[in-house]
Structure formats: C-alpha cells, structure tokens
C-alpha cells in the first residue's frame, strides 16, 4: 500500500519539477520514517529479549542445583533446607493439585454464569452483571488470600472438622483459587460465546431448539477452542498464583498424596523461603521458579494456540 518514500525522495525523475527544498524535506521525512520504524522495532525486540533474559537469568542463577542434582531435585520427596535436601516433588504436586481443583470447580460455574449471561439473563441485568464480573476479575489476589485465611479456612474447619482438621490444605487453596479465577474464565467464555453470529443462534431457535440444545449443539461446538483457551488461561493463572495460596495451603514440605491435607505449591514455597535463602537453598528455589515458568509456559502456549484458532475464525 505504501510506495517506498526513500526511492521517491532519492529519485529526481519521480518529481521532475521538485525544488531542492522539497527534496530536502522529502529526504528528512524518509529519515524520520526509518528512525520511527527502527525505534519501535527495537522496543518490540526488547520484549523478545525480555523472555530470553528471564529464562537465562533463572537458568544461570539456578545452575548449581540443575547441574549437580537435577534428578534428585525433580524426584526428591521433601524440601528440607537445613539438611540441604531439595526435592521439588511436594511443591510440583501441590501446584498441580490446587490448580486442577480450582479449574474443576471454576469451569462448570463459569460456563453456567456465561450461559446465563448470554442466553437467559434479562436485558436490563445483562450489562451490569457483565461489568461486575469484569470488575471482579481485577481484584488483587492478596485480597482473596486474606479472605481465605480469615473466613474460608475457619468456616471449612467448622463445617467439616474431619476433612479439614486445621482449615488449611490443598483443597482450601484450590477453592480460593477457584473463586479467584471464576470471574476471569466467565469473562473470557462470555466474550467467546458472543462471537457466535446471531444468525446461527436464531436459526437454531427457529428450528425449535431449546436454549440448552442451542448452547450444546450450536454454541459450544462453534467456540469449543476459544472456551478451552479461556479455561487454560485460568489454569495458568492458578498455577502461578502466590498470594491467594500461601495463606491457606498449609505449607507442609513433605510429599503426601493428599487432596484435603496440607501441602505446598511452588509459588508459596518461593514466597516463604526466598527472603531467608542463601547459597544452595537460593539456587534450588530459583530452579523451582524455572520449573514453574516452564509449566506455565507450556500451558499458556496451549491456550494461545486454542484462542488463536477462534480468533482466526472470528476474523
């Protein structure tokens, strides 16, 4: 669409009647053009470098652990800094379990809210409710953590004393995470469901479908990938969450195959121990950070792939 201004400016033949001054202005603008493009490109490249820098710095600073005991690190079943035992298994297990619990609870609820918002909600409520959900997605995670430890944990302990003898645990953390990501997944699912063209929807209703049949047979198949992408983005959030989790996860550093019992997550372990850590412990914690980054990287790449498919379709 743009003809190269550089060539135009440098060629007298393009503007046979142009004065020297005009050509000088053209040349100067061509220079600004190139400077503008190059400088914005430099910033874009900086983003690329940033990811590289994060990976490199984490690798370098955790090299002692990775090079010396990579296998022990990934399979060790306890994290005892005083004995220089750094097993990441309890933290990895806790991270995955809490996130999966969160997603298992949040997905049906979020989809339910999204279906309600797009299909059933009275017109007057639709906008305010939608905005409320989006606003709630912006509440900082530390608030969820504070609420979890002050209200939810004692509540669970009170209602199910046998399952939650201390209130805190992996399941409690999973529940707090679920509450945290519900608005997030709801907002994405609703946006994705709204990309279904009204005409498709109306045709299905016209054939006599019930609302549920429209949702299941028309909307879900059309935006399957987009909704999955939203779910996986929510999962990514839950995996890396620190503040909502540390308060209520129970912080037990031994590997116990438990759901309601105490455990720890990668982010919680880093938050608890990093300020005090030195030497081997710090290196091991940074290695743990690298593991978390790689897990979330894989999850987010999947999510992006799925969301990109829906975006291409929408476009």
């Amino acid at each position, binding site marked *: *669409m743009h003809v190269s201004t550089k060539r135009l400016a440098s060629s007298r033949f393009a503007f046979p009647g142009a004065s020297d001054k005009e050509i000088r202005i053209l040349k100067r603008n061509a220079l*600004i*053009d190139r400077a*503008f*493009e190059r*400088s*914005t*490109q430099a*910033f*874009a490249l900086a*983003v*690329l470098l*940033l*990811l590289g*820098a*994060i990976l490199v*710095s*984490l690798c370098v*600073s955790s090299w002692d652990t990775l090079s010396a005991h990579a296998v022990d690190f990934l399979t060790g079943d306890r994290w005892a800094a005083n004995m220089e035992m750094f097993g990441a298994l309890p933290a990895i297990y806790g991270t995955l379990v809490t996130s999966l619990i969160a997603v298992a609870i949040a997905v049906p*609820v*979020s*989809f*339910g809210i999204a*279906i*309600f918002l797009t299909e*059933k909600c009275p017109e007057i409520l639709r906008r305010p409710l939608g*905005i409320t959900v989006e*606003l709630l997605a*912006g*509440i*900082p*995670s*530390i*608030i*969820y953590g*504070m*609420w979890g430890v*002050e209200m939810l944990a004692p509540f669970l302990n009170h209602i199910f004393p046998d399952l939650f003898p201390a209130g805190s645990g992996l399941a409690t953390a999973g529940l707090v995470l679920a*509450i945290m990501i519900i*608005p997030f997944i709801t907002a994405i699912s609703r946006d994705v469901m709204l990309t279904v063209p009204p005409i498709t929807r109306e045709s299905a209703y016209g054939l006599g479908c*019930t*609302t*549920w*049949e429209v949702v299941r047979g028309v909307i879900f198949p059309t935006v399957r990938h987009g909704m999955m992408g939203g779910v996986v*983005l929510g999962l990514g*959030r839950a995996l*890396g*969450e*620190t*503040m909502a989790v540390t308060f209520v996860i129970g912080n037990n550093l031994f590997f116990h195959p438990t759901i309601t019992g105490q455990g720890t997550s990668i*982010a919680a372990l880093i*938050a608890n121990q*990093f300020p005090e850590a030195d030497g081997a412990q710090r290196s091991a914690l*940074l290695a743990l*950070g690298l593991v*978390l980054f790689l897990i*979330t*990287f894989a999850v*987010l*790449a999947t999510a992006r792939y799925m969301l990109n498919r829906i975006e291409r379709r929408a476009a």
Partner: protein
Amino acid sequence: MRHYTSALYRRRRFVNRCAMVLCLLAAFFGLAWLVLILGTLMVKGVSALSLDVFFERTRMRDGGLGNAILGSLILTSAATAIGTLVGVAAGTWLAEYGGKSRLARAVRFINDVLLSAPSIIIGLFVYAVLVLPMGHFSGWAGIAALTVIIVPVVIRSTEDMLNLVPTELREAASALGAHRWWVVSRVCYSGARAGIVTGILLGGARISGETAPLLFTSLNSNQWNFFDMQGEMPNLPMTLYQNMTINSFIPDLVNLAWTGAMILTLGILILNIVARFVSRQSH
C-alpha cells in the same frame, strides 16, 4: 397436539429446565462468593477507616498507611509511565510494521506468554538481575518488576486498538502525501487513543495490586519515602501482607490491613471504571 405431550418433547423440556436451573445456580454460587468477599472487605475495612489512615506512616501503634499508599502510587505511576512508552512503541511496530512476518508472530506469542507469566517469577528475575548486583532492595527494582508486568498488557491493547483503525484512513492520509510516521502518529494514534488509554489504565489497575513481585524487589518500609528510589519503597500490598503475617499479633494492624485492602480494591475498581468510561467515550 400430540407432539406437545410426547415423551421426547417432555424429556427435551425437562433437560432444558434442568440445565437452565443449573446455570442459574452456578450464577448464584459464583456471585455469592464474590459478594461475600466484597462484603467482608467493606465490613472489616470500614471499621478502622479514618483520615489518619491516609496521613500517618505505618507503625506499631496508632499508625496509618500514608507512606504505603504514597509508595504504591509512586511505584505504580512510574511503572505505568515507562510501560506506556515501551508498550505503545512495541505495539505500534506490531500493528503497523510487523504484520504477519515471522518476527512479529514470535513477538506476539512471547508477549502473550509474558502477559500471563506468574508474577512471582518476574520478581525472581528482577531480583537476579537488579537486586543482587545492586546489593540491596530498592524502589527502582520494584518499578522494574511492575514494568515487566504492565508492558505486555499495553502492547496487547495498543496493537488491538491500532488494528481497529480502518486501513482506508491510512490510505487516505498517504494519498494526500503524508509520510508513514506522520500517518501513524497523527492518524492512527488519534483514532486508537481512547482504546490505548483504556489498556494503560487497566494495566495500571493490575499492577497496583501485585504483591508477589514486590516481595524480593522493593520490599517495604515503615518510613515515608519521598522519591528515594535507591531505598526500599513502602507499598500497600506488601503492608497488607506483613500486617496479616508478622504483624498479625496486633489486632489494630490486622484491622488496618483490611482497611488497606478496601482502599486498594476501591482504587482498582475506580481505575477500571474510569477505563471503561474512556473506552465508552470513543464509541
């Protein structure tokens, strides 16, 4: 009339009713928790609210949150300013020059990854590259961490918004003899301004509540810090965290933490609403 009473019809209607009731229940379930949280926040937050909260520094007795609020404002606005510069520039390149090139696709993908990278990892990264070499926690490190978090948000919204500017506008300007940089900075930006500002505001709202990246970067302080970026910078999220943990043996400080939580949430909600208002203006 037969098909209205047929078993199939009844079953379809039944399934539909069940599904819709479940959706309604889900909506109630989800919103109930959130109402509970906001309710707790308001009830517990209001109890310790007073003017002193805004003008006193944090201390063990009779303190406020003034220094923490000021510090949070400094950190957030500085990170937002730097993030705007970097993010708008990079987003411009992606939308206007990058197109579908391999480099642009790579940057876009990496940006999406960074957009939802765990914030504690960002904190570790800044600790490794800034705090360790400098030898101490500092406001600069906190700003760096928050900048890394806000930049992807701004890039994303800038690119999306510039893509919404119709190509015809660019072509019209070019046809009149405008140079590319002029087209971008005068035509495209003015078309996408509201959207970009919205993105920046939402990014600012997001980073103002981040705690994990500040744990190892700006740390916290109980003193007023008027722009001594070399020193530890007090901030609201860390103060909440400390008041709920090491300070939680003092009931007044726990109450103050709830008040701080309420102030923080209200601030973020207001930023969100302003952002929405700005984006509405453009339509």
